[in-house]
């Protein structure tokens, strides 16, 4: 057994897992606030990364400026998407709303392919790609940055839900829309805000991944990866999304190790999370942290 490789893979898994966690939180945010399963979550990463890449390569702005512009764009994008496409769907059957988000996903992918092509484009480098040595392990600085940013975002989410006015309003809306309205909360504003925040933070994750792997349509694959993560965590639990993300991240990499060492199936990396998902859901249908009835996290 090659323990060093295993350890390296587990660490990689945790790093990628925190990113899954971040995207998972974005997914849960929308689900909790408006009960919409957003199948276009992965495309938010894709759009964010492409827009940022485009601004940086087109206008040669400093990174932070391009990045802030991207966030601004995503905020407007998220709000418009909610107001123009999803608000009219309020009151429609859940399945129709799901079909709409699947449609959006396909639409955005096609548009991005059409506008930016199908080839991987590297981000203008902001780190020397030399890897740093931590406890004898090779870690790319971009990975390290990804980890730090993910943890900051998670902290930000925790603060947002606990202390901010809008965060409390979102939780109240998730608890009961009528109660929220009786307190003077505009649930339309809450819905729009949840899409805006979700789009912005997903874009951030997209840029981070883009910096590591380059930007390509593969980014939207995150949307699919995040599914097992959030379902595992329980669709409506923010903490569950993070834990689910970490589990899926580590699992993938361990599966790859097992696969490479012994099984040689070839693509266990992609499939393993779904196997585990099925098993866990058979034991805990509401996911690890999901709401059963009145018990809430």
């Amino acid at each position, binding site marked *: 057994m090659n323990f060093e490789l295993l350890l390296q893979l587990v660490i990689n898994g945790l790093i990628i897992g925190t990113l899954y966690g971040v995207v998972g939180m974005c997914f849960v945010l929308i689900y909790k606030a408006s009960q919409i399963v957003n199948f276009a979550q992965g495309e938010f990463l894709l759009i964010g990364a492409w827009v940022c890449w485009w601004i940086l390569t087109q206008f040669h702005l400093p990174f932070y400026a391009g990045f802030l512009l991207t966030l601004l764009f995503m905020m407007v994008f998220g709000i418009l998407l909610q107001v123009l496409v999803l608000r009219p769907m309020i009151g429609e059957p859940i399945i129709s709303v799901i079909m709409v988000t699947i449609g959006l996903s396909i639409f955005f992918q096609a548009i991005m392919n059409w506008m930016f092509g199908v080839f991987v484009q590297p981000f203008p480098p902001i780190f020397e790609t030399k890897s740093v040595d931590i406890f004898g392990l090779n870690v790319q600085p971009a990975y390290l940055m990804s980890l730090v940013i993910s943890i900051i975002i998670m902290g930000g989410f925790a603060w947002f839900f606990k202390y901010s006015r809008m965060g409390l309003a979102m939780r109240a809306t998730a608890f009961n829309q*009528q109660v929220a*309205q*009786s307190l*003077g*909360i505009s649930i339309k504003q809450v819905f729009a805000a949840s899409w805006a925040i979700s789009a912005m933070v997903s874009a951030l994750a997209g840029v981070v991944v883009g910096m590591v792997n380059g930007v390509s349509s593969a980014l939207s694959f995150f949307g699919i990866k995040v599914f097992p993560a959030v379902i595992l965590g329980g669709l409506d639990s923010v903490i569950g999304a993070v834990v689910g993300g970490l589990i899926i991240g580590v699992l993938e990499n361990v599966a790859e190790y097992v696969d490479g060492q012994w099984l040689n199936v070839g693509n266990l990396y992609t499939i393993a999370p779904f196997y585990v998902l099925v098993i866990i859901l058979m034991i805990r249908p509401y996911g690890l942290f999901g709401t059963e009835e009145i018990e809430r996290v």
Partner: protein
Amino acid sequence: MSEAAAKTEPAENAETAENLLTVNNIEVVYDEVILVLRGVSLDVPKGALVTLLGANGAGKSTTLKAISGLLKTEDGEVTRGDVIFKGNKINHLAPEAIVRRGIFQVMEGRRIVEDMTVIENLRLGAYTRKDKGVKDDMEMVFTYFPRLKERTGLAGYLSGGEQQMLAIGRALMARPVMMLLDEPSMGLSPLLVGEVFEIIRRLNRDLGITMLLVEQNARMALKAADYGYIMESGKIVLDGTAQELSDNEDVKEFYLGGGGEERKSFKNLKSYKRRKRWI
């Protein structure tokens, strides 16, 4: 009509100036077909504590929701008549806009946010406010409900009485001009009912919050209130000062008698006279 205008012509507009809220012959329909309120009118003078009594299903909660706008969240609609607050029509406004104007409904069954703490629930009550007084007001709520201060866990684990107190405290945080209370005594022990009613009275007297109180517990409500309306099958069938209602033989029989759950109808009785008619 604006308040200022009302003040300049006190003689003519005495009634509108006094009445903070006027419900003018409203008809309410749910799901576009279910007619629930069939011409309800009532007045709530500024600073008053008015109670709305009636049997199950009479339409009391519906009346409150028509005022607070929450009807719209249940596919209900005011199809005729007006709700007038401070001289302005408010029936077309969204619930959040009505909260901002100063009407706050404490819904039936308390409806606190169970997965939040007491403090978070109170902060939610102040959602529409942007001033700096929120912290002080929280202390003020704790002076009325001292036991809430000790509860640090999730609000879902509070006792029924504590939840009701939290619901009223949360309403206070909005600094409302008027509170609509829907059955605050529901499910509380007699001792606690007394306590809650005492606090409601104090809020009305000390803070000058105008109250419209819906109750099944007619005895307690009439003790606390200045004026009362009695509702049956979507109509107001009787109204008068709390004293008049308490002395009324029919009210005694149907609402105050022996605590019996069985309630008959006013329909066959000719003994009452409506104080006021609309249409």
